[in-house]
């Protein structure tokens, strides 16, 4: 990684990273750019988030669905770990709780492939400094 030498470097880097992200988000080829985040903090991992994440990755690979699966930190829903966030292009992200293998399978079949929501969505009910 090249070092940033000035604040301007950092800002340019941020802009390009942001546009990359938004390109990803605004694409209209959903098969390729489904985004899935798996909450991988201690409580998530303790509840099986790792197994869930590898299952999702394998399953998507098997079905040849190009998706970006990443780990992220705690979403705060300890009552429903493992938690994942699914975002189809152009749609709002949807958070699902208690996602073990079976539910992961269901989410892939119904939400990602069929575009239907699955029971057990966790409503996002907070604001952040950016969307306030």
């Amino acid at each position, binding site marked *: 990684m090249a070092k940033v030498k000035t*604040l301007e470097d*950092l800002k340019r880097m941020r802009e390009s990273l942001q546009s990359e992200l938004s390109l990803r988000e605004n694409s209209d080829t959903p098969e390729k750019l489904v985004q899935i*985040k798996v909450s991988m903090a201690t409580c998530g991992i303790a509840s099986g988030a790792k197994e869930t994440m590898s299952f999702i990755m394998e399953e998507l690979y098997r079905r040849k669905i190009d998706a970006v699966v990443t780990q*992220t930190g705690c979403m705060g829903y300890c009552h429903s770990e493992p938690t994942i966030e699914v975002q189809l292009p152009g749609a709002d992200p949807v958070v699902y709780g208690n996602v073990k293998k079976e539910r992961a399978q269901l989410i892939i079949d119904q939400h990602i492939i069929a575009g239907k929501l699955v029971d057990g*969505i966790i409503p996002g009910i907070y604001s952040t400094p950016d969307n306030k």
Partner: protein
Amino acid sequence: MAKFKNHILVCAGTGCRASEGEEIVQELKTAVSQNQLENEVQVVRTGCFGFCEKGPIVKMIPDNTFYTQVKTADAKEIVEEHIIKGRQVQRLLYENPEDATRISDSKHMNFYKKQIRIALRNCGFINPENINEYVARDGYTALGKVITEMTPEDCIDIIKQSGLRGRGGGGFPTGLKWEITNKVESAEKYVVCNADEGDPGAFMDRSILEGDPHSVLEAMAICGYCIEASVGLIYIRAEYPLAIQRLKIAIEQARDLGVIGDNIFGTEFSFDVEIRYGAGAFVCGEETSLIQSMEGLRGEPTVKPPFPSVKGYMGKPTNVNNVETFANVPVIINKGAAWFASIGTEKSKGTKVFALAGKINNVGLIEVPMGTTLREVIFDIGGGIKDGRKFKSVQTGGPSGGCLTEKHLDVPIDYDNLLESGSMMGSGGMIVMDEDDCMVSVAKFYLDFTVEESCGKCAPCRIGNKRLYEILDKITKGKAQFEDLDNLRNLANVIKDTSLCGLGQTSPNPVLSTMDNFPEEYLAHVHQGKCPAKQCKALKEYVINAETCVGCTLCSRVCPVNAITGDKKQPHLINAQLCIKCGACFAKCKFGAISIQ
């Protein structure tokens, strides 16, 4: 691929389910199929919206219409009016309590402002192991701005004006702390991040480090610039392996990117970060103990003054802040002091992260503006008490805090209010208890913790807490005298008044607050030998109700001490002298004939 135009989200949280949430789902589905909309409209159950008092909740996607207090009878109307005719059902819309206007789009509801994620802003959004994602969300721009455009004094001023106070417990103004350390002359100074989150039942610092480690690194570097320190140390619990691993990755990546290290952003300012491990001592959350521990010593606190700001790590001026405090800093720089100060109460600005746990439906990590009431946190965000039990108490501040009760539910949460109510903010653990929890036992639980975690340096904490525990133990065993209650209170007050460090100065809080808020429970134990919550084993008495007992003999067969007698098909009897109160009979009885007196 089938794509649904509309989704109807129905809350299936415990609270809404209790008020016919499931029936509404069925009715909506029926209405959808009656109108042959199965391929266009999908009814979906969701988790708790955290708005249980206005439940059941139904939310329409994509237009975000938010219907409250929906009844089964409304299902048809929602489908026919909203979906088919495209008209909102006005009478079901949420009414703004301030001006009685109906709010159609949930995004405009105040309710959505109940939780504002500032410290947790990136947790659950970014991949914590990828610095690029942090940078894409304005990461390290605050640091850049501070060190290229501001003097240390300017930056300290912003922090002071923001009103940020230490999130580790005491609530000392952060900007003032920085200023004091800044003003002490020394060639060597240190920035320390206190990540020794020892409160049992608190995990917000861990979550921040696991989910957004860079925000802490960035803030530490900003602090380093402000106090003129070039070394930052993170003192972290060894029990947090994942947080440690993510921190290590973050430090490496930040070094590679050059946002920590030598001559950051081409300036004279250099700053690097090292990790130090705790080793399982709650007292090391106290800053002077923490410093002793970092020096390779027993984590015994030292008398303040001198404060670490003057004489800290290796005898040098040291600024100690906790993880959550640091996590707020970059946002304050980026969005300004005024913005931050606009959130919260007069003396407590911004938000506070709480780890909500115990007998509550939505156990989780939440972040609310200062001034939110306990009721909103417990009943709205937390979704109320588990299994429909009755709320009894909420414990805040961990072993240093107190047990608050019904009458405190509408107190706006901030440092001063909690202190006044006999508890404290602490680091943010919030444990909810129901009617089955015995408050004497809860106090005893915390004292057991304190006795184990006392460092032993000062007499009141070393011996006093042990004696407090012993008196509480006597009470829970029905062996206490009335004077024990007087002794308990005097002892608790003296320990608070004379202990050396924050641990001992706050350790009697669970005792004092339960004595103040649940005096009748103490008296019941001492005077009547009864535990109202039926938790204290020694005070339990198992009794068979002769009328409901069918004489199945199951209980007498599971009793390990043969304390139950009775002929087949005849009511049985428990011999109280022999009974060891194991509860096996109670668990086995299929007829509910055994009760605890």
